[in-house]
């Protein structure tokens, strides 16, 4: 499914490209967005270029509005492990588009494709316990909370706990 383009009612989700540099810089230098995402803000366009290169290498997608073609977020797999048929999903959305169902629309099509067309069996998402909006989103999509991982990562120079959520193929089919 990597490399594919997806269409939903309001969105086109297509592979990120080099021309997305300004949009990626805007997203990943936004303080509040990066606080919820758990990453140091990109400080310069050079950082953004390197970062975008990684995203393209990992075959992540741009979430774009069908009408205006504006890039409003990104979504992609990290830790994609064929051997154990599992992957982790990471995503973020521009703050001005929060709470409008765009992220749900994006995740739904990615999850559908993940379980319907690939041999994969388990999709994970890591979320801060304080990120209520994301927790609501994941639970609404059928993710199950498996546990609280204490002091699991250092992000923005702070030790952070994470909830680990997952959806497995048998959840998805029922």
């Amino acid at each position, binding site marked *: 499914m990597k490399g594919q383009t997806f269409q939903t009612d309001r969105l086109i989700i297509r592979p990120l490209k080099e021309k997305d540099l300004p949009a990626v810089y805007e997203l990943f230098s936004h303080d509040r967005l990066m606080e919820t995402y758990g990453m140091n803000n990109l400080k310069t366009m050079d950082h953004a270029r390197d970062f975008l290169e990684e995203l393209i290498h990992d075959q992540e997608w741009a979430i774009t509005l069908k009408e205006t073609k504006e890039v409003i977020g990104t979504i992609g797999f990290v830790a994609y492990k064929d051997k154990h048929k599992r992957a982790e999903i990471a995503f973020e959305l521009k703050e001005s588009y929060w709470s409008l169902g765009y992220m749900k629309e994006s995740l739904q099509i990615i999850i559908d494709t993940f379980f319907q067309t690939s041999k994969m069996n388990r999709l994970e998402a890591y979320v801060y316990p304080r990120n209520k909006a994301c927790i609501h989103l994941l639970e609404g999509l059928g993710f*199950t909370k*498996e546990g609280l991982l204490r002091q*699991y990562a250092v992000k923005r120079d702070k030790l952070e706990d994470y909830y680990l959520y*997952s959806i497995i193929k048998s959840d998805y089919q029922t």
Partner: protein
Amino acid sequence: MKLRQPILHTQHLDLRPIKLTDVDAVFEYAKDERVGPNAGWKPHTDKEESRSFIKFALQKRDFHQPGIYAIIYRKKNKMIGTIEIHSYKEFKGELGFVLHPKYWNKGFATEAAKAIIVYGFEVLGLRRLAYGHFLFNEPSKRVCEKLGFTYEGTLRNKYLQYNGDVIDEAIYSITSEDFFHHKIPWVMDFKKTLKVDYDLDS
């Protein structure tokens, strides 16, 4: 710079870096069908597999990993297993061990693990030490409960076993706060019996 790997002495055991000459001892338990599947690997059928494992183990410290310890049963001067902090990254790692079945149920896994936990927090400066066991592995569960790990959750279908079985994993952890704020009851007494020998630290 390599991470420190001092020799650790406990009441019954010596923990020292694994060596190529441990190959016979490793093969003796690695060929046992009760051992590998609990940790996700196929029993060894050829001594060369045990040799490759040790070679791999010896490389770990070159990749900024703490390295694998051999567990020596002092009374018999016999190498009976391995223990390590694997998946080490900055401030966290995960405890893993393998023990010869002949030496199960004698408290040796717990004794070795206690030494490694102290080493993890006091020498490596960990903030989080994780412990995972396949859900079916009851003995491993008992070890981690005795060690004072806190259960965090069960990861469904986390691993695919070499024979195609889908495996759930239970995850536990000890945080630096648990360790240093006296939430782990055995630490104080155990440290009186633990000797950490830096002299031979390579």
